[in-house]
């Protein structure tokens, strides 16, 4: 008998971090240790998270596969399920199904420079790759991170940002939208695509990973192109609405491509061929 693909693992909420107004990170541990030991995933995979009584919601796995003791997810509470998750406390249980989808081709990137560009709540899908790359730091060239949010308060992963900022082997540029700065803000002020332009990234032997709201992605691609990035060296993740995560509920497809199976990671070359439905 096959297993029930809709049956979640029971996870214990080990630690809750408030990242920004309405944004939390949960560190989850498998209640059943055997399930935890057997669990493996790759950077870019996503999962379905349940608040029992409310339903399931889709987010990426935000922690790195190189950190095996736990999985983390970061979410903004907006709908019914995320509000249900938001009410949970440390020590309580919730559901987890995954990992699903494809992953970033990190192996192929070894020896290259990596440019990460993220906006708003889209740092989580990227943090998984960033941590993965930083955990194998000597296998990559320069690492540059450009990250922006609406306001200083909306920046997520403040701890990680501070840590990356300390490192001499990471170039971190943070920015907030005009009007979102505070008197003591030391980063940039401006929209991500413009700030990226002024950073003038070098495209030689460099892979760009872009995650953010559709509008940010749309304006970031031309900037990368201007700085000489080829489509095959640009990657992003799509965040279509998902329910099943396993190619059945019929919700996530972009043309004939299923974000839950063929994605969520796509190269710009693939995107160019895909139906404009994301």
């Amino acid at each position: 008998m096959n297993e029930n693909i809709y049956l979640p693992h029971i996870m214990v909420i080990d630690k809750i971090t408030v990242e920004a107004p309405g944004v939390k990170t949960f560190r989850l541990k498998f209640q059943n240790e055997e399930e935890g030991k057997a669990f493996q995933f790759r950077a870019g995979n996503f999962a379905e998270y349940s608040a029992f009584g409310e339903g399931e919601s889709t987010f990426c796995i935000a922690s790195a596969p190189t950190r095996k003791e736990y999985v983390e997810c970061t979410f903004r509470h907006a709908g019914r399920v995320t509000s249900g998750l938001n009410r949970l406390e440390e020590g309580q249980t919730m559901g987890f199904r995954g990992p699903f989808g494809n992953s970033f081709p990190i192996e192929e990137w070894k020896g290259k420079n990596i440019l990460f560009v993220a906006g708003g709540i889209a740092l989580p899908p990227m943090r998984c790759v960033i941590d993965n790359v930083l955990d194998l730091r000597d296998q990559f060239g320069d690492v540059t991170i450009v990250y922006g949010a609406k306001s200083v308060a909306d920046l997520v992963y403040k701890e990680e940002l501070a840590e990356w900022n300390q490192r001499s082997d990471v170039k971190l540029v943070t920015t907030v939208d005009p009007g979102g700065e505070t008197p003591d803000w030391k980063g940039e002020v401006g929209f991500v695509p413009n700030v990226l332009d002024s950073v003038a990234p070098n495209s030689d032997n460099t892979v760009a990973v872009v995650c953010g709201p559709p509008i940010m992605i749309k304006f970031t691609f031309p900037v990368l192109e201007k700085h000489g990035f080829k489509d095959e060296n640009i990657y992003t993740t799509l965040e279509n609405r998902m329910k099943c995560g396993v190619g059945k509920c019929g919700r996530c497809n972009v043309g004939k491509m299923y974000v839950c199976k063929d994605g969520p990671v796509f190269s710009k070359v693939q995107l160019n061929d895909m139906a404009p439905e994301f």
Partner: protein
Amino acid sequence: MEKYIIKTEQIDAWLKRIIESVPRVLAPVSSGTKTEFRRIKSPEEVNNKSLTTTVSAKAAAFPPVETLFKYQKDGKDTTLTEDSFDKYPETVLWHARSCDAMGFSPLSAIFDWDYKDNIYDERRNKLTIVTFACNQSDECCFCTSVGGGPGNVEGSDIQLTMLNATDTLVEVMTEKGQKLVALLPDIFQPLSEEVDKEAVLAKIPVQFTKEEIKEHVSNAFDSPVWKRQSARCLGCGACAFVCPTCACFDIQEDAHGNHGRRLRCWDACGFSLFTQHTSGYNPRPTQATRWRQRILHKFSYMPERLGVYGCTGCGRCSRACPVDMNLQEHLISIANSNHE
């Protein structure tokens, strides 16, 4: 394939034996103006004249609402329990049509590509399908244009064809079918001479081929045809609910305090909220984009990704549509158009 002849008047005796022997028999039952597959207790309940039920037979393996598991919260802890597969009864689907039986192949393709859906599979495997070949059709039928036909046996375990006033041809395709025959073997006479099955079947002209539709629509993503065809569509989803191949579903919670069930419920790509993000952003913002998804999914994405088409030409969507969107007419117009 085994072929037999049975006296038409003896069919009810056989059905009676089936009802006594099999936990669940579903057959077309009429109430008011509607005919639907219902559980029957006696042969008299069956509407033998029904051409097609309003809703297809898919619910026999993919119910409108299905429990995926139950949860019980207890303090900080949660316990999950699955329904035992014993709860899914062995079922005979009686007096289905070829277009019903054919619908299970696309359904299975969706539920079993890559990850296997064991709930669907278990229900499907417990299903024995007895179809009655169609001696008549209506203006919505177009099975012959999508590779089926009124006497097509694909997906059927047994097919019965009324040959004349007294005799019915019995074609047994599978072991499951053979088991039903074995319930009352004496009434089945081996076929002594070839019979002309085709001659008694409904005549349904071929209007186009599914390959032709695939070729046309696969290059027509930006065509104005979607907007034109969907202008009057209400996005009510009726076409998806009645369809034998539509498998889109939602996952919902049925919560009662500390316990409840996680459910899978039929959904439809025609609903405006189907793809809408929490932020309000919707990658398919208009009915035209949703109609395009319906047609492309069935005639382009499914054949390309799963190797099966998502339409058996049963015509149910056309019969159910409150604003008379006729799929066959739309497909003919697509087949005759040039979208370059």
